């Protein structure tokens, strides 16, 4: 195995294909977002941030769903692989959520006249971000990796189930965010915008899949290295005890 790469691992060739495809589709999505799609009649070019913002939000949600499934799988089967999957996915989800929050703010300033508003979607996304930040804090504060995996699984399950409840409660509280743009029968958006959005969604999903593969194997390798360290330590301890006994 070449140093510093995942070459030779199961599914490597397929993952490389996914990565290359992600690059190509992303290039197409960028072209479409900046050239092909028309400028919005009301918002102008600012609206183009939407082709980054919306796919990132959807895929972040997908990532947290994978963490949720990984958590259930770990608590049920107790196989480390489930936890490695949950970890890898939560990390990508957290990064994507950060991008969603920042890109939304950039769009909100010129359109709404403010960086932030306490609307249902915004508040829910921010809380989602905090829950998964707590997810990684929890992991790093627990020294036993097996226990960290169990605790993180529980938080991943609670956090994901909480999202619709948070959304509902903030929605009743107050709301301002533009409604779902795609499900309104297509009349709200010209076809070229919908196609651009779908291509951007495909690109983001492919990037997620490729990153998930890489992160998963990095987490796996980290665990293996930790195991080796532990075994080395044990062996050294045993040797020291033997030497101590012979003296």
């Amino acid at each position, binding site marked *: 195995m070449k140093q510093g790469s995942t070459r030779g691992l199961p599914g490597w060739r397929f993952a490389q294909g996914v990565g290359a495809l992600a690059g190509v589709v992303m290039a197409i999505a960028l072209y479409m977002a900046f050239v092909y799609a028309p400028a919005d009649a009301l918002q102008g070019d600012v609206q183009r941030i939407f082709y980054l913002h919306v796919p990132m939000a959807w895929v972040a949600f997908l990532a947290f769903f994978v963490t949720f499934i990984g958590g259930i799988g770990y*608590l049920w089967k107790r196989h480390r692989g489930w936890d490695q999957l949950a970890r890898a996915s939560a990390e990508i989800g957290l990064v994507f959520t950060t991008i969603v929050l920042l890109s939304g703010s950039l769009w909100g300033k010129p359109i709404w006249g403010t960086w932030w508003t306490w609307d249902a979607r915004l508040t829910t996304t921010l*809380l989602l971000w*905090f*829950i998964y*930040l*707590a997810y990684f*804090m*929890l992991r790093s*504060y*627990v*020294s036993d990796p097996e*226990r960290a995996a*169990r*605790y993180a*699984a*529980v*938080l991943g*399950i*609670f*956090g994901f*189930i*909480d999202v619709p*409840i*948070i959304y*509902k*409660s*903030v929605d*009743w*509280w107050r709301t301002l965010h533009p409604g779902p743009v795609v499900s309104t029968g297509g009349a709200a958006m010209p076809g070229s915008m919908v196609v651009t959005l779908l291509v951007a969604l495909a690109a983001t999903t492919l990037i997620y899949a490729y990153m998930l593969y890489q992160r998963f194997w990095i987490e796996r390798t980290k665990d293996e290295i930790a195991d080796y360290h532990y075994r080395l330590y044990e062996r050294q301890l045993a040797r020291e005890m033997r030497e101590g006994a012979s003296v």
Partner: protein
Amino acid sequence: MRRELGRIYAVAWKDLLSEIRTKEMFGGMAVFALLTIITFNFAFDLTGVDRAASGAGALWVAISFAAMLGLGRSIAVERDRGSLDGLLLCPVDRGVLYLGKLLSNLIFILLVEAISVPVFGALYDLPIYRPTLLLGLLLGTIGFAGIGTLFAVMASTTRAREILFPVLLFPVAVPVVIATVRVASMTLSGTTGDVGRWLNLLVGFDVVFLTIAFLVFDRIVEE
């Protein structure tokens, strides 16, 4: 079923008895809640006509902060004195232990509320003895204590548990905070239109989260 209830009661009674003898937690929680209510007086203008809306928030913040202190403490002492190991050795279902700890935590928080809510009503001259407000507080407290008990057990084995516990608890408890504050402020300001919807949300939250907490609790405490 009867036997399980007896066991839940036994776990909760152990905590109450230890509190009666040591008087460690309750006094601190109650005084802290009152101090928070009084501090809000300096932060917001709670004398004007809109005090019904902001006062409800101040009350719940005071209660949830005091509850957080108590929840963290009630689990931390079990760890520090090794009594959690004793509990885990008991030949009972782990869910029973969870419900027992939840019951004793709930009793402590409700006692704190029994003191701080009337004081709050008197200090800010608000009519707090309304059934919907009290029902909202009760349901909110159940939900908050329900996840709080579980997360406190998780946080108690970690480094820096006092810091981690609120970081885990507060984002997940947001629906409880919003719903409880809404119910209270609507009741206090006399607009009772949507109160039923918020109470439903609280019931739903309590049922869903207590069920999951009950199910996963034995995964949390196994050593």
